[in-house]
Structures are given as C-alpha cells and as structure tokens.
C-alpha cells in the first residue's frame, strides 16, 4: 500500500483551515503594503508620461486587474480539472471561491480600460481584440456563476460543482480558439486598437507597477482563500447535519 504524497493532507479541512488561517494575515498585510506603496509611487512620485500625460496612471490599476482576471480563470479551470479527476471537495471549493473575485477584476479591467481610453482616444469603448476579449472574459465568469447557482440544490453542491467544472474547463479549452477568432475578426475589419505603452518606462513607473501588481495579487489571494474557508466550513457543516438528522450514533 503506497502512502499518498504528504501534500494531500491539505485537502482535508483539518489541515487546510489552520494553514490558511496562518497565511491570511500575511496576505492581507502584503496587499495593503503592496497596493499602498505601488500606488503612492505610481500615482504621485512617478514622472508624467511624455505622450500620455497624467491619465496613463490608470495603468497601475488596469494592468494588475487584467492579469488577475485572466489568471483567476486559469486557476478556476485548473481546480475544475483537479476536482473532476480526483473528486476532492476542496478543489471544487477553490474553483467556486475564485469566481466572484475573478468577476470583480474582470469588470474592473473593463471599467479602468474604458476610463483610460476615453481621455486618450476620445471614445469610451473600442471593439478591438483585447477589449472585446476582456468583455468575453467577464461573460465567462458571469456564466459560470449563473450556471452553478442555477444547478445547485440546497445542501448538495455536487451537481453544481460538476456542471460548473465542466463549463470552466470547456471555456478554458476554448480560450485559444476564442482569442484567435477575435483577433482574426479584428484584423478583418481593420479595427482600431488600443496599444499599451510604446515609450520607455521610468524606473519609478516600473517599480510602482510591480508593487501594485504584487499588492493586488496578494489581495486577490487573500479574498479567494477567505471565501474558500467559508465555503469549506459551510460544506463540512451541512455534511455533518445528515448523520445528526438521521440520529446516527456518530
């Protein structure tokens, strides 16, 4: 009988909860420091951009948001696959915990992108490949949340887990084709395109961007893990209710 890899014990609430309990204060601190330092540097200390003036500073919010929105979906698909393959409760919990945070950052990507584009190029929106893909990403998140909540039965999240996992997985597998088709579509109609920075980056700008990215990453991780703990605890409680309700000796 082979022993399972020692990391597997973190799939159990008995280990996951204390571990995340110790991790979370650190993550919140990193978030506050990173965002604070990054935005201070980026918004107030970094020099004005030669081409784009002051409003380029929205980038310190837009770039981290876009990254997080994308990586959260990838992580959701990862945990979806894990859950379907190994059927651990924690995998599905993490998958579900990622969705609201991912949605938030996808929407923030759209809002900050639009607010950045308006003073730069005069329009609130442009149907280029990147922005259209960002909108589709937001729709992917909303679809996931809509499906899981529609399929869920009270006290039994398994069907919602599986439907959601399949959707997340199929969506992720579809992403390369989706991005290719949107890019192809855009070149077809010679649409406009919003380009990120072309000119050189001052060191304070880079530092500000890195710090704020790290800070927002830490925040996203903290929010997701907090939600995961809550979901896991709720599931453990609802599972414990059955034996008690039937009057088991346990």
């Amino acid at each position: 009988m082979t022993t399972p890899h020692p990391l597997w014990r973190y799939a159990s609430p008995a280990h996951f909860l204390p571990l995340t309990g110790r991790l979370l204060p650190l993550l919140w601190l990193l978030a506050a420091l990173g965002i604070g330092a990054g935005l201070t540097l980026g918004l107030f200390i970094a020099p004005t951009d030669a081409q784009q003036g002051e409003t380029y500073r929205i980038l310190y919010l837009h770039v981290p948001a876009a990254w997080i929105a994308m990586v959260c979906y990838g992580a959701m698909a990862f945990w979806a696959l894990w859950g379907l393959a190994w059927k651990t409760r924690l995998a599905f919990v993490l998958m579900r915990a990622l969705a609201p945070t991912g949605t938030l950052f996808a929407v923030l990507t759209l809002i900050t992108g639009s607010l950045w584009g308006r003073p730069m190029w005069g329009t609130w929106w442009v149907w280029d490949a990147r922005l259209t893909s960002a909108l589709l990403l937001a729709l992917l998140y909303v679809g996931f949340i809509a499906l899981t909540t529609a399929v869920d039965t009270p006290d039994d999240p398994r069907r919602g887990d599986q439907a959601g996992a399949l959707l997340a997985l199929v969506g992720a597998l579809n992403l390369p084709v989706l991005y290719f088709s949107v890019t192809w579509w855009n070149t077809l109609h010679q649409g406009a395109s919003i380009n990120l920075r072309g000119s050189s980056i001052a060191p304070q700008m880079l530092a500000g961007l890195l710090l704020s990215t790290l800070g927002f990453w830490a925040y996203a991780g903290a929010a997701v893990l907090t939600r995961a703990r809550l979901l896991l605890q709720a599931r453990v409680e609802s599972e414990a209710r059955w034996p008690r309700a039937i009057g088991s000796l346990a």
Partner: protein
Amino acid sequence: MNELFGEHGAFVWISLAAVAIGIAVELWTLRRATR
C-alpha cells in the same frame, strides 16, 4: 486637487474610486458571510 492628475484627472479619480468600491463590496460580502 482637481489638477493633481492633469486636466483629465477626474478619470484617474473615478478609476481609483471604482477599484476601492469593488474591493469594499467584496470585503463586505466576505465579512457578512463570516457572521
């Protein structure tokens, strides 16, 4: 204050506000679920 971020500074402020509101809402929902 208005000129802090140039003539279009309002856009920067609104972006900051959007992020702050979004984070606040998320944290509030997490706090509410903890109770």
